[in-house]
């Protein structure tokens, strides 16, 4: 029993798929957003889209940490990484994201910058301890799933008195982004498949406003095929019954109250920014973390001069529309042509959680645009 394979039963998936057809009014149109990029990939990897009734449209949400980082912040990261004293550490999938000058961290590395991939921010801290003569900077990217790891690493840096370590903080919060999507008049989402792993940290309560204020159901879901199908069934049942509640399909790891230790670390190390710019979504109030004043000495933005420029996305790239659920990847003119995983133009193609990367990897690029 590993609690993985059991949730991949084709028999169970087929049974839920049959049930889904009984839950929709024939000829109706139900738009569900899977918030998390991990869900997007699971859907296309396992071909779950083919099991859905034609009435159900899945719209892909902003829950892809790499995708939502604006180009200006990538330029800032590159400018820090190009300093000769700096060892710039990052998760691997940020390296190929192009900045405003079309220069990525990977290109900076090719030109001589010391850019290193780490698995965990703790690995970055270990590099700083091994190389006391260098400045080690960690590129903090990710939602509340990843932010606690950065927070704990900074608590550890303080405990150990590591002075040559700092964090370039780009951590973001999921709930304000969902509110921005709900407030956008052009995207009308009927219900949300709630993110699984971010909810292990924040719990299910931060989604209550979606049900209460916007009257839309939310079902937090796991990442195996039957988890996602079950969550869609629960959403369709709520919609059929005229309900709007927050349900938790992923109870095996998500508690309603989240993870108190992780939340306490976030609270201590970070402060919420007045606003933070998201790729495609623009500035969203209270949607990003900065490093709290008590930890300012470990804040790379305090330690190094960064350009801090706001850079428009390239016109040809429709990442912004994809992230807001306004366009499917294959509706973008450069999808699979000028923009591929090997030479990406937009972040949605770079990240292993990006919707464009999922469509490309699992062969959804030959689909016709629905009339």
């Amino acid at each position, binding site marked *: 029993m590993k609690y993985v394979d059991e949730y991949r039963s084709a028999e*169970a998936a087929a049974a*839920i798929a049959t049930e889904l057809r009984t839950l929709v009014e024939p000829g109706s149109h139900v738009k569900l957003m899977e918030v998390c990029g991990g869900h997007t990939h699971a859907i296309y990897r396992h071909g779950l889209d083919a099991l859905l009734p034609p009435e159900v449209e899945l719209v892909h949400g902003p829950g892809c940490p790499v995708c939502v980082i604006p180009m200006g912040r990538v330029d800032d990261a590159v400018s820090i990484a190009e300093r000769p004293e700096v060892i710039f550490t990052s*998760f691997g999938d940020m390296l190929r994201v192009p900045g405003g000058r079309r220069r990525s961290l990977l290109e900076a590395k090719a030109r001589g910058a010391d850019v290193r991939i780490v698995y965990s921010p703790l690995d970055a801290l270990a590099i700083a301890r091994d190389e006391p003569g260098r400045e080690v900077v960690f590129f903090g990217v990710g939602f509340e*799933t990843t932010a606690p*790891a950065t927070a*704990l690493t900074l608590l550890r840096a303080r405990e150990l008195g590591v002075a040559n370590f700092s964090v370039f903080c780009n951590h973001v919060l999921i709930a304000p982004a969902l509110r921005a999507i709900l407030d956008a008049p052009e995207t009308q989402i009927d219900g949300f498949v709630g993110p699984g*792993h971010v909810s292990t940290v924040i719990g299910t309560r931060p989604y209550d406003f979606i049900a209460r204020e916007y009257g839309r159901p939310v079902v937090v879901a796991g990442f195996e095929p039957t988890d996602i199908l079950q969550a869609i069934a629960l959403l369709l049942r709520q919609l059929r019954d005229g309900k709007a509640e927050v349900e938790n399909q992923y*109870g095996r790891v998500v508690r309603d109250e989240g*993870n108190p230790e*992780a939340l306490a670390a976030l609270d201590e190390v970070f402060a919420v920014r007045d606003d933070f710019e998201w790729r495609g979504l623009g500035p969203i109030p209270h949607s990003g973390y900065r490093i709290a004043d008590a930890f300012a000495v470990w804040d790379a933005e305090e330690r190094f001069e960064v350009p801090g420029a706001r850079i428009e996305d390239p016109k040809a790239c429709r990442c912004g529309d994809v992230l807001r659920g306004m366009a499917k990847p294959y509706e973008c003119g450069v999808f699979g042509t000028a923009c591929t995983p090997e030479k990406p133009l937009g972040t949605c193609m770079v990240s292993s959680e990006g919707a464009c990367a999922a469509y490309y990897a699992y062969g959804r690029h030959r689909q016709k645009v629905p009339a």
Partner: protein
Amino acid sequence: MLERLPDGLAKVDFGGVRRSVSIAFTPEAEPGDWVLVHVGFALAMLDEDEARATLELLGEAIDAELRA
């Protein structure tokens, strides 16, 4: 999870690959527990009762399908 290590770390077996991860956010985790790990941190412990409850629902879905 295989064993507790010093400094709030634990050795975890990822289906064959072993790595040390931080259990600062799951301080109650003991060897034998299943933990959900993200970027080197255990974020949650698997609740086996809840896991079985979800599986039972799946079993019911299959039964309903067979009866139909």
